[in-house]
């Protein structure tokens, strides 16, 4: 069956793979990638496939079980319907019921969303990746099983869908073929949010059927609540890492900075995505240098969860979301800080600042601020001095969806960049109209099986195209070093992986990093050369 011919009524059909991503269908890339040959997509081994339903498109990022008997399958279908009932009830889903009902009830099927979706576009228009496809599978199930006379009028009202285990298993997989970037919602004339629907489907599977990607649940929120961080860094290991960070600051800059921890009554509790500690310690260092040289009263926390702003619950599970964000609130309350400043992590911004707004109640309602805003104040108001010529190379900015489209934090980071980077230029489109990096909704941390290939080939391809187009042909020479500024840990991870897959450092001289690294690189109080052109 051609990818463009798949219909919703085919969704429950018995087949090993409903859709096959054909590299030939993918849109081409601009200069200097006109002749780029994508790597073949690795087939999953029998061992990896065993016991799992991977019948959507053959990519594996959520281990949906394949029950052995028909009875087991029927039991799972019944459990799914029970979860769906809860999802539609006030008692169990007060957290998102209103926006969910509004989005489920009111789609006028104009398909405007499809044009806005980078996954649909960059797959070459694969029908199953159309935002409406997923939502309509879900709507039809609801209509058929939860509307009066739904089964009787199914054909007339468009609710003709078979509800079997394949339908459900594929729906779970399809919910993880969306970055939750909400670009579709932004263009929907009605305001319907297909991203939210995808998230709510994920939630149903997690909160009722115990089905969620390991990176988000077992290795994500569960590990974070148990050990203190989804990276597995315990409070003890954190202090060891900090010794390295402090030594590295001295090596790079000659400055002796003692990073403050658990300083009660500090003005600011700074909270980082713990991924920075392991992969980009220079980001932690840069924040410390800026805050110390600006004379701010600040601290990090070594309390469980307090040193990791990550909250993967945002992507799949309200209970885990609330548990993690409440830990953050309690840490801030205990320290008695005046405000929490969220480091360079988009989803943490959203979880702590706007979602947390409905959970950080009473004494836990500590003010929260974006580090983009804190930095803007320091730089634009010249509380730290910078020499922009130290950053005299082409720089472009990636807008994390959670920070921009979902929170409206657009200009502070731009005002900083305009002050410190003379060759700053925008991507097209940017700001609230940006494209996701392709790692959104947890995809950036899903490194196993063949899923990374999907990430690079489909959603990430749009971002890579945008990055290439941000520079001129001359600038795209590998001899001209260029910088993609991504003030978000997950986006940074995805962009690192994209640049690696497309060999962009070697072929086009494209490097990536955060915002604070550029700030420190320009600070006149700091020895030159903080930023190193060392791709990692």
């Amino acid at each position, binding site marked *: 069956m051609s990818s463009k011919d798949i219909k919703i009524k085919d969704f429950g059909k018995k087949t090993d793979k409903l859709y096959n991503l054909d590299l030939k269908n993918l849109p081409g890339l601009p200069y200097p990638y006109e002749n780029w040959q994508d790597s073949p997509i690795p087939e999953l081994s029998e061992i990896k496939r065993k016991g799992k339903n991977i019948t959507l498109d053959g990519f594996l990022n959520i281990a949906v079980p394949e029950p052995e008997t028909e009875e087991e399958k029927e039991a799972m279908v019944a459990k799914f319907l029970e979860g769906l009932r809860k999802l539609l009830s*006030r*008692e169990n889903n*007060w*957290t*998102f019921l*209103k926006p969910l*009902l*509004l989005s489920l*009830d*009111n789609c006028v*099927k*104009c*398909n*405007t969303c499809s*044009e806005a979706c980078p996954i649909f576009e960059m797959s070459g228009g694969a*029908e199953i990746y159309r935002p*409406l496809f997923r939502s309509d599978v879900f709507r039809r199930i609801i209509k058929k099983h939860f509307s009066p006379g739904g089964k009787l009028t199914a054909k007339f*009202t468009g*609710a003709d869908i078979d509800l079997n285990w394949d339908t459900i298993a594929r729906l779970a997989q399809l919910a993880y073929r969306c970055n939750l970037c909400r670009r579709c919602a932004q*263009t*929907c*004339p*009605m*305001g*319907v*949010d297909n991203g939210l629907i995808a998230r709510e489907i994920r939630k149903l599977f997690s*909160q*009722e059927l115990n089905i969620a990607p390991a990176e988000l*649940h077992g290795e994500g*929120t*569960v*590990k974070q*609540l148990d050990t203190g961080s989804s990276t597995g860094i315990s409070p003890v290991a954190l202090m060891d890492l900090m010794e390295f960070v402090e030594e590295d600051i001295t090596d790079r800059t000659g400055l002796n900075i003692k990073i403050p921890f658990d300083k009660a009554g500090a003005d600011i509790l700074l909270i980082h995505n713990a991924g920075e500690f392991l992969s980009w310690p220079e980001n932690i260092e840069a924040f410390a240098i800026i805050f110390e040289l600006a004379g701010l009263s600040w601290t990090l926390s070594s309390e*469980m969860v307090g040193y990791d702003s990550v909250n993967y619950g945002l992507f799949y*599970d309200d*209970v885990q979301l*609330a*548990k993690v964000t409440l830990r953050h609130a309690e840490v801030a309350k205990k320290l008695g800080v005046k405000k929490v400043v969220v480091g360079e992590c988009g989803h943490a911004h959203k979880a702590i600042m*706007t*979602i947390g*707004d*409905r*959970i*950080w*109640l*009473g004494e836990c*309602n500590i*003010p929260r*601020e*974006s580090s983009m*805003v804190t930095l803007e104040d320091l730089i634009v108001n010249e509380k730290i001095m910078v020499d922009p010529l130290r950053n005299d190379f082409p720089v472009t900015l990636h807008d994390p969806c959670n920070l*921009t489209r979902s*929170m*409206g*934090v*657009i*200009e*502070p980071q731009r005002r900083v960049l305009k002050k410190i980077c003379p060759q700053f230029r925008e991507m097209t489109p940017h*700001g609230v*109209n940006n494209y996701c990096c392709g790692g959104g909704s947890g995809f950036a941390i899903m490194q196993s099986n063949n899923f990374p290939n999907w990430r690079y080939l489909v959603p990430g391809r749009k971002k890579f195209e945008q990055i290439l187009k941000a520079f001129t042909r001359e600038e795209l020479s590998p001899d001209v070093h260029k910088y993609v500024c991504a003030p978000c840990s997950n986006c940074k991870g995805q962009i690192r992986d994209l640049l690696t897959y497309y060999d962009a450092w070697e072929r086009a001289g494209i490097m990536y990093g955060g915002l604070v690294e550029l700030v420190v690189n320009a600070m006149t109080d700091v020895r030159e050369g903080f930023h190193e052109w060392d791709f990692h």
Partner: protein
Amino acid sequence: MYWAQVITYVSIIVAVIAMIAKVLRYLTAPESFRWELYPVPHEKGRAEYGGSYLEELDWWSKPRHSDWFKEISEMMQEIFLLKGVYHNNKKVWTFSLPFHLGCYLTIGWLLFLLLGGILETAGVAVGTGGNTFASVIHYLTIIFGYAGLVLAGVGALGLFAWRSSNKAQRRYNSPAEYINLLIFVAVVTVTLISQLGADPSFTTLRSYVGSLVTFGAAPPLGTLMTIEIVMISLLIMYVPLTRMSHFVAKYFLYHSVRWNDEPNERGSKLEKRLMELLDQKVGWSGDHIKTGEKWIDIVQETGNEQ
């Protein structure tokens, strides 16, 4: 035509109940997590580029400046010009705009018929001469009526053609969606034929509406006008029962979700409502959830997650 009046009354009652039920469905839904989407038009000085008050240093200590004029202006452009559709899907806009404008004008026409009916029952003749106000109503009824019916009919036909000729549309739209559009076309056609043929100034129709107000006897109606009235009545009843009444939801989608950036403040009514919601029991049965316990207890619990 006693039975036609009964159908109209029943239709209006059903429509009102259905609309109230729809409003209540969203109005009484519990306070949800924040899920705004930028640009938010009431963000004064920032809406143009999609910024928010979160761009402000220590935003919680400063007054928030909301530009309600901008928000209303945005709403008006959305309602009357379908701005979002224009920017994101011009093909749909070509047909959707006349259809929606036609519907608004037709609603206006019905309201003018009602007003005219009330005036006539009060003894004020609605026509070309006499009372100025009644004259204005007379002309507005004619203008709104014909403009509305023609635009709605053309728009519905255009949408039907677009949905029929577009593969993606055919794939996702159920037979009901097509039939709904054809119902509009049928009602408009019958109404235009009936009115142009027998009652071009809507005089009889106004008397009929007047009879509904006074619960009096309906004026003599021909067969075609009786069919027209029954069709309009059934359409009035049918629309709120379908997704065609999405205008109600659009208000909530925009104001309660997309543009709702109200921060929670300590001791606020919002905080009280949220506290109550957290006091509810959780029914989910995932392994990481203690089913039957309260939200607040589950999320506050520390211990082994495994």
